[in-house]
């Protein structure tokens, strides 16, 4: 990609530049804007009084009183309800759809299937209501009714006729000779396994004094966020508003606009409180489009909430894996080879979220080879699920490291310390920082790793055995642009932070309020964080890949600092001094000698409706630096 022409402020300064943004190990080149105002990061020498403190969640009171409104709580005047009719065969074709049984029921108003779509619509990666069935649970039709109960009864009353076909459910079935093909021309995604090598695995094996090989299997895991996938859609002329339980309001907006052939500005997506997502709520799904389509057809707002069984059969999963791991090491424990062969059945769709990256990222090792085979099978598609692939990879590699430690007669912790990676060997670059050693040291000290043999004898009964273990992790978490925030000081001295990000329940509202309060010098209690509205809040990306704090936090910080600059300028005129002589803390502005003070409220009262605002944006990351997070977990487990 060529670097766009500078449209900058000063000569020679490029305002818009290309940069590489990483999300969950995948890299993308984006054009980003250099912020006007990029304060130096808070480092360990910074005096912070709010950031880093344990504070109650700023929205905890709303949650414990039941006032927090989630998407499933949205009620609009005249609102109708939608339910989805799903295939009950794993493979084949729907030959007829008979809605008459549904339409006879009291309260059922409308039934739609592929023939009723204005044009083909892709929902969550697959065409909506596709008559060609590739898994049980695939949406085939939908019912709209006056109540949820009637919609569900209607969905059960729609009769589907099929021509069933053979299917495959497991990796072994999908790769057997003559297996039925799930999609495309081969069940192996992209036609062949994905092999990545560093160094020479054969050489690494030859160099090893000790070699172990183990096979590990991890099961399919379901997200099951307590709040089901849900959407409420409402049209006003040609403008569509969608309340959606989502990790990415702008992604939902863009997908809905594209698939419904609307201008993005005609689609508004809102998400206030959200009952978890865990990676399964990144996209507009069938429920989103079904709500929007019925709302258009009926002229009423429509709510579509997945039932619990739909949530478990067609709302994403962490795919199962089979991993065969070979590790080789010298007598002193240095890894000479990591070799992993991984098999992942993705379902009827999905992407390459496999375990192999973890093998390449976790330890220092000159010879690494990973082979991953992703296959499609006739089950619902996987979706991102809390560090997709890394959890499965960590389970297998970390167990194999314990086996290797046993074979070497080494302490499992010592083996990990010997193979600590000083730099990002996967991408051949330095880390921005890496405190994994401190994690090992601190964790071992707090856990009492050194005393574990004595504690092993302390099992509470003869039939109970006590064991100890540890596992480390590495995960990309640097965040990146673009992300924006507006920070405004209201005329009553309260502070609003506006950013189009999401709080999944992770605490983003609290973290961003802390950052704004710290950077502006305001009281935390006076800060309100307004998120989740594509029309009213500036852009921020999906809340995925451990990106939110690192992407949106700097934008909030620079916005709050800009607001503080303006506030101090206003105050300096009132206090007849230089802005540089003033500091703000606890919503009070004082001269550096503390001789004179004005509260934020006194300043804003004098200002009247003149507003103090700051705009922050997230600048690019430093180039060629690995921005990774690290951790270690220790466990003491009794087995009966």
């Amino acid at each position: 990609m060529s670097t766009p022409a500078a449209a900058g402020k000063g000569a020679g300064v490029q305002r818009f530049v290309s940069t590489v943004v990483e999300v969950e190990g995948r890299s993308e080149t984006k054009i980003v804007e250099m912020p006007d105002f990029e304060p130096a990061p808070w480092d360990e020498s910074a005096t912070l009084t709010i950031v880093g403190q344990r504070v109650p969640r700023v929205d905890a009171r709303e949650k414990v009183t039941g006032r927090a409104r989630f998407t499933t709580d949205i009620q609009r005047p005249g609102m109708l309800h939608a339910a989805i009719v799903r295939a009950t065969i794993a493979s084949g074709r729907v030959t007829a759809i008979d809605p008459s049984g549904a339409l006879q029921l009291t309260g059922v108003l409308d039934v739609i299937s592929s023939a009723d779509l204005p044009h083909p619509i892709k929902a969550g990666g697959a065409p909506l209501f596709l008559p060609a069935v590739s898994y049980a649970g695939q949406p085939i039709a939908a019912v709209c009714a006056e109540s949820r109960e009637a919609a569900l009864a209607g969905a059960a009353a729609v009769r589907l006729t099929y021509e069933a076909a053979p299917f495959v459910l497991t990796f072994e079935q999908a790769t057997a000779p003559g297996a039925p093909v799930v999609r495309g021309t081969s069940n192996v995604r992209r036609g062949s396994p994905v092999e990545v090598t560093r160094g020479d695995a054969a050489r690494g094996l030859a160099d090893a004094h000790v070699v172990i090989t183990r096979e590990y299997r991890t099961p399919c895991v379901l997200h099951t966020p307590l709040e089901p996938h849900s959407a409420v859609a409402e049209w006003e002329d040609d403008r569509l508003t969608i309340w959606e339980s989502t990790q990415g309001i702008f992604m939902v907006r863009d997908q809905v606009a594209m698939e419904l052939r609307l201008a993005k500005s005609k689609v508004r997506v809102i998400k206030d409180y959200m009952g978890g997502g865990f990676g399964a709520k990144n996209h507009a799904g069938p429920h989103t489009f079904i709500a929007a389509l019925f709302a258009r057809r009926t002229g009423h707002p429509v709510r579509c909430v997945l039932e619990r069984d739909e949530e478990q059969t067609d709302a994403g999963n962490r795919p199962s894996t089979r991993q065969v791991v070979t590790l080789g090491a010298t007598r002193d424990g240095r890894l000479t080879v990591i070799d992993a062969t991984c098999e992942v059945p993705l379902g009827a769709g999905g992407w390459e979220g496999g375990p192999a990256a973890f093998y390449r990222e976790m330890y220092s090792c000159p010879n690494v080879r990973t082979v991953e085979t992703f296959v499609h099978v006739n089950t619902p598609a996987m979706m991102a699920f809390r560090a997709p692939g890394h959890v499965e990879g960590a389970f297998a590699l970390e167990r194999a490291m314990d086996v290797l430690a046993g074979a070497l007669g080494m302490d499992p912790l010592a083996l990990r310390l010997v193979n600590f990676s000083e730099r990002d060997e996967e991408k051949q670059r330095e880390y921005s920082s890496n405190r994994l050693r401190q994690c090992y040291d601190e964790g071992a000290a707090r856990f009492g790793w050194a005393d574990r043999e004595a504690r092993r004898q302390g099992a509470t009964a003869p039939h109970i055995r006590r064991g100890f273990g540890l596992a480390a992790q590495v995960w990309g978490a640097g965040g990146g642009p673009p992300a924006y925030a507006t920070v405004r000081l209201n005329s009553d001295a309260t502070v609003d932070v506006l950013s189009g990000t999401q709080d999944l329940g992770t605490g983003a509202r609290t973290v961003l309020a802390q950052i704004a309060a710290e950077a502006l010098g305001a009281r935390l209690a006076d800060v309100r964080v307004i998120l989740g509205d594509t029309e009213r809040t500036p852009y921020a990306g999906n809340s995925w890949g451990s990106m939110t704090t690192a992407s949106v936090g700097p934008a909030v910080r620079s916005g709050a600092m800009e607001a503080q600059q303006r506030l101090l300028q206003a105050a300096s005129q009132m206090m007849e001094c230089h802005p540089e002589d003033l500091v703000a803390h606890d919503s009070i502005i004082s001269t550096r000698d503390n001789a004179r003070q004005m509260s934020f409220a006194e300043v804003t009262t004098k200002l009247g409706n003149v507003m103090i605002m700051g705009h922050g944006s997230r600048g690019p990351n430093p180039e060629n630096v690995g921005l990774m997070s690290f951790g270690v977990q220790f466990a003491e487990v009794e087995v009966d």
Partner: protein
Amino acid sequence: MQLRINGRTREVSAEPHESLLTTLRERLALTGTKLACDRGECGACTVLHNGDAVYSCITLTRACEGDEITTIEGMATDGALHPLQQAFVTADAVQCGFCTPGQLLSAYALLARNATPDATAISEAMSGNLCRCGTYPKIVQAIQRAAEAMRAGDA
């Protein structure tokens, strides 16, 4: 028919097959009680029925005529949080908050019959309320703190 909800008498009409959850949420706009599994498994819809914690998604409204129903909206008094609510805030026994109303009402019913539950008794009493964020240890702590605060308040 009449229901007594949070100390007030409410006149409602409900279908014979209608769940208390639907009546509360759709007819009375008391959306603090959550719809999640809709099959008596997750506990997000928990309310108090004559003081007992019940799943409102599998309780028929018509079976509650004249009975006392308490929802999360009735837990705080005059804007002051109940000690359990306060303890959930202080102990950070809340992440996304979707299960929280149900957790609080189950905890309320527990403390009404056992003012000094140990961790095992709490885990057992709360086993019908799922939290997918994984706040269980903090929920146990919060309930113990609230129990202490309530005993101190009674003394």
